[in-house]
């Protein structure tokens, strides 16, 4: 017994230790980083990829990157410093300095001491910062806008918040993400790939080595540069013209479907939307402006009645359906009587009383009666009214109305093309074609976005086909357009019918509604529109000043540009929209502009009109009107 006691004791000790060690080894986690091991000694550093730049079609830079500086404090290098000199250099008080240091007393990792320093200030600080070894400057990239235009096209970027992080994968807090416009639609291209570096850190969090010689690292890939189809000079000019007016201008190159400009007014200044101190003040201001809605992209999102510009399409449908020909005439007696009652009468302002009106003069004088007849004949061609209406709406839909066009911008609306189903719901199956007579002149239930109207102009210019409008030209200098933008889309109208319409649209500038806006050298084809608009307040229906609409393309023979202009409450189509169109075409094709006409447009300030409109609504809402 006495001989063997120590054997037992040692065996007991060893057994305990082995069991304990086995238990520890068995509960140990998989140590490889690939298996999601979380190790105290691995520090993952992420290197932001610089976001791609954006150019216009002439390779003029629109958006680039700029740097924003921060002062980093590295406690592991800290030595005794001249606090007073440092505070003086950086421009903070001694108390602030102490407060900032005491925040991280025991943490030896470096942290941002002062952020958001301007380039000017950092240049001054950098000269003397070498005296304070614990401090170093670091730059962050932010968006930099070279032009204060095209805000709605370019869109803005935001810092990724918790909400966005949950919604999209592959984003971390503090990353940048495009919120609207190009920045959002081509986010994947612009974003690039973030670099991930694994470092080995010691117990103070100081980097000692590269982890596993960089076996798990990911290289940084910078975002790709985009070249847009936008012509920034035209865009700039149009934005200038549209100042103090609400509305939008869309210009398309008909042969390719490239969007030349996309103006929305009122707009905002993109440089103030850069993440930083401006954004905090500027963004709420824009959001709170519910009257002007500067963040609302009218060119893509607003749905208006197209008005008289729709008459061109109506005539095309008539020709295609064979209910009218080039020589068909109707008479106009100051309007069109579509029912027995006295108020079943649509007024007409063409000014040709009781004479035969041809198709051409109907278009350039914008005769309502003529197109009511055309509409009646189209519907009447079919056995039932429903079939007639369906055939009519089918033609319209082939022009891209009533659906998303498919352009490469993240926003959009369908618009509305009514068909028999729509009216079945609307009137609960009890309706006649006369109920829909407003459709004949582009009023009524018909809705279209300015982009769709511009597309209509492009289709007419192309004589019956279109390419889906798109805004991207090149990625990193290479033409890598989505193949769907290269497909020629045909409408249901035969191309020979377009000639008549183009002739008539040319006449609009010669002796029609827009004759005062004609240009000497360039033959423009266009069509004015004047859209009545109402707002319902309670039971009363208030009529506001008309919207001024215009579609055009030029030159007549070989169209280079097709436009749609929509100015809210601008009056007659010939009043504002047509001059803007002619100025834009002149600017785009020749580079020069008619100074007199330009000034006239620039001086037209519609803000009073809008103010009246607002007052009208406010008054209408007053308790006196609601509870009569």
């Amino acid at each position, binding site marked *: 017994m*006495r*001989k063997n*006691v*120590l*054997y037992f*004791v*040692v*065996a007991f*000790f*060893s057994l*305990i*230790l*082995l069991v*304990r*060690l*086995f238990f*520890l*080894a*068995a*509960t*140990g*986690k*998989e*140590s490889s980083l690939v298996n999601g091991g979380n*190790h*105290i*000694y*691995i520090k993952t550093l992420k290197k932001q990829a610089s976001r791609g730049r954006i150019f216009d079609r002439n390779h003029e830079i629109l958006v680039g990157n700029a740097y924003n500086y921060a002062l980093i404090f590295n406690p592991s290098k800290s030595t005794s410093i001249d606090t007073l000199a440092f505070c003086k250099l950086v421009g903070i008080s001694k108390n602030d300095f102490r407060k900032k240091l005491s925040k991280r007393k025991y943490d030896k990792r470096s942290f941002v001491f002062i952020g958001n320093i301007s380039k000017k200030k950092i240049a001054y600080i950098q000269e003397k910062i070498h005296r304070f070894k614990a401090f170093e400057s670091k730059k962050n990239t932010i968006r930099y806008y070279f032009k204060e235009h095209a805000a709605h096209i370019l869109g803005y970027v935001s810092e990724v918040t918790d909400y966005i992080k949950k919604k999209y994968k592959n984003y971390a807090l503090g990353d940048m993400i495009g919120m609207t416009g190009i920045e959002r639609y081509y986010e994947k291209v612009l974003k690039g790939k973030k670099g991930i570096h694994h470092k*080995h*850190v*010691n*117990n103070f969090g100081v980097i*000692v*080595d590269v982890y596993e010689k960089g076996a798990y690292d990911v290289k940084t890939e910078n975002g790709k540069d985009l070249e847009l189809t936008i012509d920034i000079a035209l865009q700039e000019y149009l934005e200038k013209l549209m100042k103090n007016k609400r509305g939008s201008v869309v210009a398309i190159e008909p042969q390719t479907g490239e969007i030349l400009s996309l103006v929305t007014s009122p707009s905002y200044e993109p440089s103030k939307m850069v993440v930083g101190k401006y954004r905090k003040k500027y963004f709420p201001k824009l959001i709170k402006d519910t009257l002007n809605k500067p963040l609302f992209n009218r060119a893509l999102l607003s749905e208006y009645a197209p008005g008289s510009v729709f008459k061109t399409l109506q005539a095309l449908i008539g020709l295609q359906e064979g209910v009218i020909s080039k020589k068909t005439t109707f008479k106009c007696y100051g309007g069109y009587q579509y029912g027995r009652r006295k108020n079943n009468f649509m007024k007409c302002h063409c000014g040709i009383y009781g004479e035969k009106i041809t198709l051409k003069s109907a278009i350039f004088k914008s005769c309502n009666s003529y197109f009511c007849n055309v509409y009646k004949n189209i519907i009447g061609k079919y056995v039932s009214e429903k079939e007639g209406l369906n055939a009519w709406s089918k033609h319209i839909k082939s022009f891209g109305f009533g659906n998303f066009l498919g352009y490469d911008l993240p926003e959009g609306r369908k618009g509305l093309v009514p068909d028999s189903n729509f009216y079945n719901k609307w009137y609960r199956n009890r309706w006649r074609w006369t109920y829909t007579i407003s459709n004949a002149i582009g009023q009524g239930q018909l809705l279209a976005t300015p982009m769709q109207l511009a597309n209509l102009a492009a289709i007419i210019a192309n004589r019956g086909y279109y390419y889906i409008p798109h805004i991207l030209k090149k990625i990193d200098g290479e033409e890598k357009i989505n193949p769907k933008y290269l497909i020629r889309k045909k409408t249901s109208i035969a191309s020979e019918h377009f000639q008549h319409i183009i002739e008539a649209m040319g006449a609009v500038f010669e002796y029609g509604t827009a004759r005062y806006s004609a240009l000497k050298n360039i033959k423009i084809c266009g069509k004015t529109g004047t859209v009545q608009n109402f707002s319902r307040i309670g039971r009363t229906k208030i009529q506001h000043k008309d919207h001024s609409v215009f579609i055009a393309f030029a030159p007549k023979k070989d169209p280079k540009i097709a436009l749609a202009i929509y100015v809210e409450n601008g009056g007659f189509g010939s009043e504002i929209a047509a001059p803007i169109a002619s100025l834009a075409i002149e600017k785009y094709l020749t580079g020069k502009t008619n100074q007199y006409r330009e000034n006239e447009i620039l001086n037209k300030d519609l803000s009073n009109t809008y103010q009246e409109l607002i007052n009208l609504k406010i008054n209408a809402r007053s308790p006196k009107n609601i509870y009569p």
Partner: protein
Amino acid sequence: MRAAQKIFIHNDRILMLCYFLLLFIGCLSIYGIEKNLHPDMEFWSLSNQSFKQFFWVIFSFILILLLLYFLKNFQNYSYLFYFLGIALLLGLFLFGKNINGATSWYQLGGFSFQPSEFAKFTTSMGLAYFVSRPDNIFELFFGKFIAFCMVLFPMLLIILQNDMGSAIIFIGFIFGLYRENVHKIILIVPAAVMLLFTIYLFFGFWQSGFIAVLGASLFFIFFRRLYYKISFLLKRFLFTIFLAFCILKAIDYAYVNIFENRHRNRFEILTGKIKDTKGIGYNLNQSLIAIRSGNFLGMGFLKGGHTKGNFIPEQHTDYIFSYICEEFGFVGGGVVILIYTLLIFRIIQLSNNQKRSYNRIYGYALAGILSLHYFINIGMVCGILPTIGIPLPLISYGGSSIFSFSFFLLSFAKIIRESK
């Protein structure tokens, strides 16, 4: 050449194999830790700890061989060694240097040494010499008392120098004393104290008293010797309970009044009463993480992430086992434990076969001290024993420790060889 033959052939081979293996593992581990922390370090430089260790291993090996060669019968100088050890310990009160709260170091120029390490083998020598006296004074109670005092005196000096860890190791002598026919109470009391202390730590004073009573009654009901009278058994039972309560009260008093707060913290972290992985429990927590991340096969030589990040402070001394487990896993750690077990078993076996009581006691002292050393160190690193700052013999960094254990082992091998 003959010297080499003596060491490797005439000496006990298992003993020597284990000894050199442990030294090799120690040097390799310290080299690994150094290389991890400073990847661009050079081995041949004095600022490098692994080189220092290597140097110390070689240096002390040669020194010991010379010493043993010139002192043909070093047993005869046992008292000289013993009093030299005591003198060194006493000298600490005058010239000692305070490192980490313990005054247990002499600082001589560039290097420092720890006499408490030497005291382990000097005390063994003195004790062995005293017990093996030809006049058999050890048979008497007085002799046993003297022997006790010979162990307790250096132990007390070390406690006074605030080096509890080294002092606890002196408990290892009880195995040798027990082997030499001291009453078994010498084993039972420390074991009972340990057991009661463990229970006390988890349950507190009254609860552990209740557990002790329960345990004692169960023992007397099931394991009583039937030939004893009931009254005798009852007396014995009552005495046991009385003793248990005395021990418990003493433990309670010591724990509350004598122990300092830092000592109490170490126990309470183990029992889970304090949960702290950043302050006082930092070392233990990091050590456990390192051992766990080694898994069964380890992360590979020079690939230990915790070692590289210097997460375990002073890893080359007391916590060196965590390094072995991180880079070589359960296999590496298990091999180290098995080598120790083999070494100690061999020492016990050899000493049991000895006819001369000096050799026997010397061997038992070595075995007892080694077993306590390795168990306490690895137990601390694995989180089953409280933090007690003692090195892992023959592996941890430190010249004094290497020298004293090498001397202990080699001198034991020598007397074994000569007694054949």
